[in-house]
């Protein structure tokens, strides 16, 4: 199909949605906020969304040996603190110097015990993969904990993307997202399918969803009724316990009603003209990443979801992404580059880092351009970029970059470094910054103090 024709098809707004949108707009004014308004009260709707996006790159970054004399190609900045300078491989990110920070010294204590090839499986979970709980392999990931708390405010709990579709296979997983039960969530890798899922939900599945929600609401109602009849026969002090239960039921009902309303609320009007949905992971890496980043930015802007995980490439020579350096004119595959000890190899590896930095800069730019009620989408999104290995499967000092989230108290423009800092503590700090009251995350021991997180 010719590109042009396909694009037109994409832009064409479906008329029934427009109609309903007009009606609703007439009644409610602020269209998008409607369900939230009903369910949570006005103050919630006035707050800008708090979003999270995790971007994973496999095999670590190039950290050239000092004897090669190319330390300006080290992914980590040379100086620590506010005076840091971008290295050559991160130079494209300079325009965002005030909106991002490098974090150094991070690690998963469990990462040092497990097979280093499975570091992507635990990057967002911190789970003891070397010694899993009976009956389990992994545990819940950060993006899904966030989704658990943000899903009632948006249309879809989370979006899970990867360079390869599905889950790959365990211990070489093609997804970085694990659900509440610790099971991998299959990732989507095809831009067209991602677009359809986000912006073109089909009627039939919407109706199924609506039926399910409606029925659930009825059942919750029935339980409420049954609980109230019981409540009358309880002792005074115990009515409080029951009240807690009733309150919880009421809240669930409100959430369900909100979700049901989402189905009818038309999407925010957005410009899709820059989207090229014909790209695939088998084509040019640059085009592919940019389209995927376009989609993420659009999804955030329309508040379709508030939690996104995207695995940019895979560990240990798995999948298509291993060949990307070759496509970019370098001489070795991604995994082989990560093992390079020679000067030429380490330089090439850094050049691949440079390529990724360029794509990342593109992404930050997109997020910057979309505006929320307060600040840009970037100001209201925490973007975490990094790897589960620093270089060549070494599970300590994980390369990590955090960007955005100014409205959630993130104070940027620094290279923060503290030896042997638990990644889970960073995750907990992210949760707290987002106003999510989880007591702990995985093996966290507390939040990060004196770091980029000012509201923990």
């Amino acid at each position, binding site marked *: 199909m010719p590109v042009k024709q396909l694009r037109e098809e994409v832009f064409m707004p479906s008329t029934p949605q427009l109609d309903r949108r007009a009606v609703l707009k007439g009644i409610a004014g602020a269209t998008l906020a409607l369900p939230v308004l009903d369910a949570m009260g006005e103050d919630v709707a006035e707050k800008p969304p708090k979003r999270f996006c995790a971007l994973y790159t496999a095999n670590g970054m190039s950290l050239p040996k000092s004897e090669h004399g190319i330390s300006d190609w080290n992914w980590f900045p040379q100086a620590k603190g506010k005076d840091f300078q971008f290295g050559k491989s991160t130079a494209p990110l300079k325009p965002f110097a005030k909106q991002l920070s490098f974090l150094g010294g991070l690690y998963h204590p469990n990462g040092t015990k497990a097979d280093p090839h*499975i570091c992507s499986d635990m990057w967002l979970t911190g789970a003891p993969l070397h010694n899993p709980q009976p009956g389990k392999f992994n545990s819940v990931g950060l993006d899904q904990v966030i989704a658990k708390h943000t899903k009632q405010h948006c249309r879809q709990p989370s979006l899970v993307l990867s360079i390869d579709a599905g*889950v790959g296979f365990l211990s070489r997983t093609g997804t970085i997202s694990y659900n*509440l039960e610790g099971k991998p969530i299959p990732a989507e890798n095809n831009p067209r399918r991602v677009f359809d899922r986000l912006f073109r939900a089909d009627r039939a599945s919407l109706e199924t969803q609506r039926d399910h929600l409606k029925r659930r609401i009825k059942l*919750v109602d029935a339980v409420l009724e049954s609980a109230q009849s019981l409540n009358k026969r309880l*002792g005074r002090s115990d009515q409080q316990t029951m009240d807690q239960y009733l309150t919880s039921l009421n809240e*669930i009902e409100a959430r369900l009603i909100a979700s049901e309303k989402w189905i009818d609320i038309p999407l925010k009007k957005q410009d899709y003209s820059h989207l090229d949905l014909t790209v695939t992971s088998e084509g040019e890496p640059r085009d592919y990443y940019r389209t995927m980043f376009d989609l993420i930015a659009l999804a955030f802007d329309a508040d379709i979801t508030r939690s996104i995980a995207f695995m940019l490439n895979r560990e240990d020579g798995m999948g298509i992404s291993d060949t990307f350096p070759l496509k970019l004119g370098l001489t070795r595959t991604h995994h082989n580059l990560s093992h390079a000890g020679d000067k030429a190899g380490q330089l090439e590896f850094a050049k691949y880092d440079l390529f990724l930095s360029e794509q990342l800069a593109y992404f930050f730019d997109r997020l910057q351009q979309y505006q929320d009620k307060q600040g840009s989408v970037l100001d209201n999104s925490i973007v975490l970029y990094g790897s589960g290995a620093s270089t060549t499967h070494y599970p300590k000092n994980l390369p990590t970059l955090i960007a955005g989230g100014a409205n959630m108290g993130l104070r940027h423009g620094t290279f923060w470094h503290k030896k042997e800092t638990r990644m889970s503590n960073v995750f907990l700090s992210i949760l707290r910054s987002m106003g999510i009251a989880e007591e702990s995350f995985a093996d966290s021991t507390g939040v990060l103090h004196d770091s980029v997180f000012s509201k923990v």
Partner: protein
Amino acid sequence: MSRRVLGAALLFTVIGWGMTAVLSTRPADGEEPPSAKGHIAQSWTFQQHVRPLLKKNCLRCHNAETMESGIRLDQLDGSLAQQRLFLWRDMLRQIEDESMPPDGEPQPSADERKALAAWIKRAIEKARSRHAEKNGSVRRLTVAQYRNTLRDLLGIQEDLTGILPPDGISKEGFTNNGETMSLSPLLVEAYFNIAEKALDLCIVNEREQPVIQSFRMELGENINPTPCPDELILGANSMLLRNQDFQVTELQPDKPFAYRPFAMRKSFRFIEGYQGNDTVRGWREFNSIYHAVFACMRGTLGYPRGHAYQCVPEGLLLRPAIPSSELFGESSTYGPHSNFKVSLRELPQQGNFRVVVDAARYDDGLLLNPSTDTPIESPEDDAITADLSTTPSPNIAIATAGIYQIDVDYVPSEKPAMLSLQLGDRHFPGTLPQQKPSTEATEEKPSARNVAFLLVRLGAGTLDLKAQVTEQSQLRMMRFHRIDEQSRQAQRFVAFERRSPILGVHVGLRRDCGSTLARVGEPQAVTAKESRRFVFEGAINNFPSPDVEEGNPNYLAGFREIGVRSEFTDGRAMPRLRIRSVEFEGPYYETWPPATHRNIFVQSTNRDDPPTYAREVILKFASRAFRRPVTDAELTSLHNVWKTSFDETKDFQQSIKHALIVVLTSPQFLFLVEESAGPEAEDLDEYELASKLSYFLWNSAPDERLIERAAAKTLRRSLDIEIDRMIADPRFRQFTQQFASQWLSLDKFDVLEVDRKRYPQLTRDTRAQLREEPVQTVLHLIRKNLPLRRLIQSDFIVANDVVAHYYGIADRSESGFQFLPVQHESENLGGLLTQAGILAGLSDGRESNPVKRGAWFARKIIAEPPDDPPPNVPELMEDDGEQLTLRQRLERHRNQKGCANCHSGIDPWGIAFEEFNAGGRYRTGDVHDPRSTLPDGTEIENLNELKAYLIQDRLDRVAFSFMKHLAVYATGRSLNFQDVVFLEQEGVKLKSHDYRMRDMIRFIIHSDLFMKK
């Protein structure tokens, strides 16, 4: 002991409640204060007299800001509210024994003291005569209770509760305390999701035939006449059985109902993964059942003696699966060796499965160790000799049946050689050592060696011998020496021969770097030499699954594994396990529709009348779920849910499901409810009693019989019979598991990070068994109704082979994984206080920690809990360069202001455990000094003296602590002052019967604590 310290020691007991040994100091019943004091006290009021005295003498330290020792007295008023009675009682004692105010502070006059004491005494008496209000109770089911209840109610094995957040832990350590239980929308939402999922698992479409997957893998040398022609490659360390040594057949088991057999997929297309870990991008097609199912042996390489596994015509022989951590001191993700697994791509999505292993105990010989066992030097004519220099397979004549030692005479080469020895149809492969390091380097011909190789029982007759050897070694001769049945070697062989391999089945997934497997059911001892069928059952979703999407293009993705092992216990040699075949069937149904379905859609003559039948179904289900008859209002409401749904969908099953979702998310199901008409204490009704009993003793819902008794109003009358029945029931393990774990804080051991260099024996598998020891001990003592003092001191431990091995008494246990009493004959074993699971849990995995152990002891064993550290704890002083012993450091800490009060009630207990290391084992030769002066001034030399002291002087307190924890667990709430006084006063009456364990459970159940609401 100085007055100051004594005062502090007593003061620490003020905190919380129920921590003082009142029995010795409590005035005898009926004792009245002298009339004069009584007179003063009676005319006193709190505001006019008591408050000014407190202000003058106490409040300077015990005020809102200073809160010395965490105690505030400024909030006290004249009402003596329930929650303050503990504080008043401890004040009374310290006023009477003049330990407060402390030395150096202004003191009240003697008269003031007397009058104040008299007033408090009277006020407490008066407060006690007020009954504490009783307003019934509502407790949410704990996660464990909810899981058990769902399983018992629905009959499904799947554990769907993984998404529930863990329960909070109360200050006594329990998860079932109503006050610490939280409820959140997320939790309630999860209840809805679980209810729907659970019912979907139970309810089937009756009109559809089930689809059943079944296959058999047979094992044996050259068993497969048409093996897979392709070479299978499976990534790193791909160790597979030879294609011709296993055969897979899809089966159609006989079932009493019609079903569709599931045909496993045999043709595939993959774009990567089929050349191991090398990146390949190119579609390739595969077409054979052996690309869907194959026999994998991947595990850690190496085995201490003999071959880890061997295929013989009769099956696959397996030696115990030694965890890699045992072999090499560090864990490898490849799992143990030997590690046989059926690897396969497809298993059912849900439901139960059954694995049947056809297995036998191999008629094995005991491989000898050439470096420690010596060949028998006897006159040649005593031995039967096989000359191997001319033929590798001579016949030999065994004249007399018996135990033989086989020595091998051979010319070694530079490397150890593998000797494959076959005697008749029995196989004994082993290793022959390389040549000894030559003293004369120039010697051309290596000299022959004669080594002890095997102990084996042989029958009389002619024996075909086959021997082959590798590495250019040359066999010269084998000598068969019949050995005296009384000899040490023969005894050793007999012990070996009596041991049985333990068959375990594991299910999970294959990873690139190993496997993640979980055990299916309990391992089973294989005692017979003839093949028997061993059945293992589980629910497929309780096991790790790779969760790959349909059509995953990687050859290696999504492999499931069914592991079959000879389980490793303690490393003693045992006969090999012979596996003939492994069969799988799933989903496994006895009937169709399955029992889970028929439990809901009960037999009825009204099946053609939807409204009436719906009413019956709902009534039956809801009554079981609510653990009592449903009320008319409840039934009507549920029936309405059904009707609304049925009117809309016309789908009877779906609409029933909707009504049942409401049942399973209703508070009547999720909560343990004791209704209350008012603040007066009332008797539990019979149904409430049934639930309270069953959640106490089974941690699950009452069974049919309890409910029947409740319905007939005979439960209260037959209480003791029911208690005994419940304790004897297997579900009682759910009590010991919960109660013992939480009372003794075993969760600390679960999360311990052990320093494996120091404690290499604390492997994961060993830890799992040590964790179980305290639980099994409590279970044993209760089931046998033994005296409480056995918790403290006992000449047996309740152990299995793994636990006994850890304590160095492996030779006393021959029970495999089964926990049985074992006479230990050791000075340093017996009772809870020396159990490794407890002591190691109270360390940091590196060093023992007397403070943790002391605090645990005070809290759990004698119920004199220390307070939490006060908010203004000063930093510990640095050691300023001095090399201090642990004792000195503790002393220094104890003497620091702010620490002393609590630590003087903690450390003395903990120090007594110093002869036990962080791994919980007795350490000899170390300079860890266990001498201690206990808070009451008693001097002890070591832990044994502490035990003796507990039994002689403090047994009442230990009994109180046990009963207190029982009562808190049984009622799901903290005890109030009345409850504590009741336990202290009444519990002691059980002493005349030795405080027997089951008696104490009965005592708690019969008390008003339990029976009133």
